[in-house]
């Protein structure tokens, strides 16, 4: 408790240094784990041959998917430019942002937070938006250190956010891990894949409808929302100032 008191009185001095150390240890640990797993120590020859064949097939499928994704991405950018809601762009022009690496596990935090390898030295401010490459807002920057900052997920457990689905304002409640849910009236047509927009974040997308569940006896339907990326495999995020 004394340590916590010192931390509060010093304005977060202790936790900033603890997080800086934690990000270094986390990177070392992940690097060591990857080295051990990729070294082949635990793999037999037969298993490696099978794995090689499987990965070659998967590579061919991914290359095909990448080409179609590239075409869709170009079309998406053109449409976003038309609607003027592209991330990093406002009516006054392009806003500079920062690409930051995720330097911690996203599963380990009980508060729905994770660490990024950028801080005050890089010009990040508290309250900045954290977005994915596709422009989906996934978090807000919290405490800032010199080179490490903590990000609170929008869909962190016990947090709720106002969202808009097909024109209807709903309360989206976070479940953690990039998932959330909302209760919407039965009369509202909601389909899988519908974007969830947030007025608080400049009408940016905060997720997509993943599943809709309803029963005839209920006046509401349960809408399960998710972000379109696997948070555990995400390595970089984009930070933009909150005023944009």
């Amino acid at each position, binding site marked *: *408790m004394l*340590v*916590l008191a010192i*931390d509060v009185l010093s304005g*977060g001095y*202790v*936790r900033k240094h*603890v*997080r800086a150390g*934690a990000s270094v*240890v*986390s990177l070392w*640990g*992940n690097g060591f784990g990857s080295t051990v797993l990729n070294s082949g120590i635990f793999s037999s020859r037969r298993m490696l041959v099978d794995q090689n064949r499987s990965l070659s097939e998967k590579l061919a499928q991914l290359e095909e998917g990448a080409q179609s994704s590239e075409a869709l991405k170009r079309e998406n950018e053109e449409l976003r430019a038309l609607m003027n809601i592209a991330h990093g762009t406002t009516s006054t022009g392009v806003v500079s942002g920062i690409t930051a690496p995720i330097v*911690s*596990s996203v*599963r*380990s*935090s*009980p*508060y729905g*937070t994770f*660490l990024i390898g950028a801080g005050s030295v890089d010009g990040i401010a508290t309250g900045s938006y954290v977005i994915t490459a596709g422009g989906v807002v996934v978090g807000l920057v*919290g*405490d800032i250190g010199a080179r490490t900052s*903590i*990000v*609170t997920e929008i869909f962190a457990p016990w947090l709720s956010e106002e969202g808009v689905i097909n024109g209807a304002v709903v309360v989206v409640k976070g479940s953690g891990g990039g998932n959330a849910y909302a209760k919407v009236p039965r009369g509202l047509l909601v389909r899988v894949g519908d974007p969830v927009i947030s007025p608080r974040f400049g009408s940016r997308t905060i997720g997509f409808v993943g599943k809709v569940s309803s029963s005839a006896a209920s006046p509401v339907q349960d809408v399960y929302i998710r972000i379109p990326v696997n948070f555990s495999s995400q390595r970089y995020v984009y930070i933009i100032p909150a005023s944009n």
Partner: protein
Amino acid sequence: MSTSFLRAINVRAGIALIGFGSILFAPWWVPVVCMVVLAIRYPAWEAPLIGLCIDLVWLSGGSVSVPIFTIGAVLGVWLLTPLRNQLLTH
């Protein structure tokens, strides 16, 4: 020192090490389980320390920033003292 005493020290140290190490690399419930085991079995100062590390690393200073794990660990070790004294002390 007796063998059982050394074994008990090793178990306690092992659980504490797992607890500290899992703060950064394992799901959040792993260090919580370690804290609970330590608090139940021993009058362990390691449990509040694990809770403190969890809060220092992961708790963001937002509108709601109560160090739940630190407070919970301190209360757990304190409240479980009668249970340990009654059942586990030989």
